[in-house]
């Protein structure tokens, strides 16, 4: 039996727990965005929160979660569509990772709609990614919302002076 790496294990958790009905996130069929928009969004969210020790945003299906949420809240849809169209024209899907980063850096430093588009997608990505078990538990170490006999609180000897 092949050994399971930590990363593979986390991906399995991502597929199995975070997105149970999306047994394989890559198979998700978008309902609001077009397939092409959904693909580009996948590369975009993965540029914002890429794979590190833990899976990236695309792998846990953040772009699909955004599409899913657009069904009930479409307030950002026009902005998203226009921005994704601009990325399509720029060939975002075919860029390599450094190229994507360079382009997104320009967006994040721009004024007007490019910056607005970046901020909106970043916000949606953060909300979705850190609501998954991978993002919240594996990445951040969240342990909350459980039954405790007592709340121990801070047990350290914190001082404001040493800054360490």
């Amino acid at each position: 039996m092949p050994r399971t790496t930590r990363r593979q294990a986390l991906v399995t958790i991502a597929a199995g727990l975070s997105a149970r009905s999306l047994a394989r996130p890559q198979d998700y069929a978008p309902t609001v965005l077009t397939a092409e928009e959904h693909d580009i969004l996948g590369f975009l969210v993965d540029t914002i929160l890429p794979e590190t020790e833990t899976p990236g945003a695309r792998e846990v299906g953040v772009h699909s979660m955004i599409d899913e949420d657009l069904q009930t809240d479409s307030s950002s849809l026009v902005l998203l569509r226009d921005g994704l169209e601009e990325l399509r024209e720029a060939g975002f899907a075919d860029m390599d990772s450094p190229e994507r980063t360079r382009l997104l850096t320009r967006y994040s430093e721009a004024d007007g709609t490019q910056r607005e588009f970046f901020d909106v997608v970043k916000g949606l990505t953060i909300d979705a990614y850190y609501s998954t078990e991978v993002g919240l538990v594996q990445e951040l170490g969240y342990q909350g919302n459980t039954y405790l006999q007592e709340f121990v609180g801070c047990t350290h000897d914190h001082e404001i002076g040493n800054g360490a």
Partner: protein
Amino acid sequence: MANDHDVLIVGSGAAGGMAAWNLTRKGAKVLVLEAGERFDPASFWSHVKPWEARERRRQGEEPPAFEELPLRESPYQTLEGHSFLLRRVWGVGGKTNIWGRVSLRYGDVNFSEPAIDGWEIPWPVTYDQIAPYYDNVEKLIGVCGGDDDSRFLPGSKHHLPAPNQRCGEVLLIKGAEKAGYGVVRGRRAVLTREHRGRAPCHYCGACGRGCDIGAFFNSPDYLLADAMATGRLELRENSIVSHVLCDEEGMASGVRYFDRLSGEDRTVAAKRVVMAASAVDSTRILLNSKSSAHPNGIGNGSDVIGRYLCEQFRFHVYAFAPQLYGRAASNDDGISGGHIYIPRFEGPEQERDYLRGFGIQLWGIGCGNNAGFAKRMEGFGAGFKDAVRRSYPALIQMHPYGEVLPYRHNRVSVEGTPPDRFGVPTLRIEYRLGENERRMIPRMYDVVEEILHSMRAEPLPYQRGELDELGAAIHEHGTCRMGEDPKRSALNGFMQMHEVPNLFVVDGSAFPTPTEKNPTLSILAFAWRSTDFLADQMRTGEV
């Protein structure tokens, strides 16, 4: 339907629940009309994790929609450019199902300063008069806290143990004290040990979704259940009260309401009516209750009902305590919300060019169930993701709440508004801040910055002067205020209408000022005192 009730109560939240509890206890037969339905604690998503919530929604499940009903049945308008967020819960227990549980006594300063500074009318009740009721309420519902009292925050001998502090709170206390600001244990209506047979909090941190075991005060578990057990309470759900009816002399004679499910238009007679539908909705009903005896709305010959709406204003500053960067995440849920509080304080005289003051709430400290703070951090990519993880345990937040003076132009009204589906006029809310608040805001930012600087915190970007949406504190007051002078107030100090002695209004609308504090503890104390008075009046045959 035969009616043999002694008292009819409109609403079942903190005020209505207390009125029903106290009156049934004293032998009165009570009918409570509630616009919504009972929320089933078994349906609360108290222990549903964020990723499980998404999965449940995919399966078509939803948690109780606490705030949906009033927006659907009775929407409200605001003036162009002056938004006001009105958050209401229609349903048994009202907002106590999901409230913030902060339980701070108003102090002698809060009660006496309107008479001293002349803005706008004096409170008709002193701290000494209400203090025994604060004692009673705290003993009844269970409030955790410390014994760290001050002139601005009188204390209690009845506090349950205060919860331990999170790391960020320990650092905030040190920083605030170094900067010269006192920090107290939070006072919250959460059971930190078993209290009157109720199980204590298990620190799951999900109070805002409703507590499945009732470990924080809520009207259904703590008041209505006891009232029901007396056999003298009838609770009628789905009853949307539209009008208080009156007889030819102008005395209250009953109410008109609509059955929310059948749409049926009904009236029920009553010897005494107690309004407890929350500040804004009670006021709406009173203003809609026009008759030849009360052409301006029942009890409103003085034209004060609907006016002097006062809430608090607040803002939020987020920062990181660098001492906590990169630490292992911990379970920081505690009793959910702040375990500490910075009460109003004495400032150097020259710095006070405004009346009243503010306190600072400190919730959202430490590891939470989201990373919303990261939206304010610069950048993206692997480095950003790493920075988010390192910052996550270091998050601190400060939330100052400032008192808003009562202004005549801040009001709720029903003139020319669209009707609801039963033909009853809905609300319009007009609300804006004045000069006094504009002077307080810079001082609030100064204090926040002093404390952050003192603890070496690194703030996330914010704009000085920025405020949360008005109304967001959910502490509406003033629109049916009590006072000694019948020309300037609608109720006397026992919350009895000057013009209609068998009509009482026991919710937050009766408070002439909002103070800088959260009102539920005070609403409970005043409703208890008012219904003690009503029961006495009934016994002597006065009403």
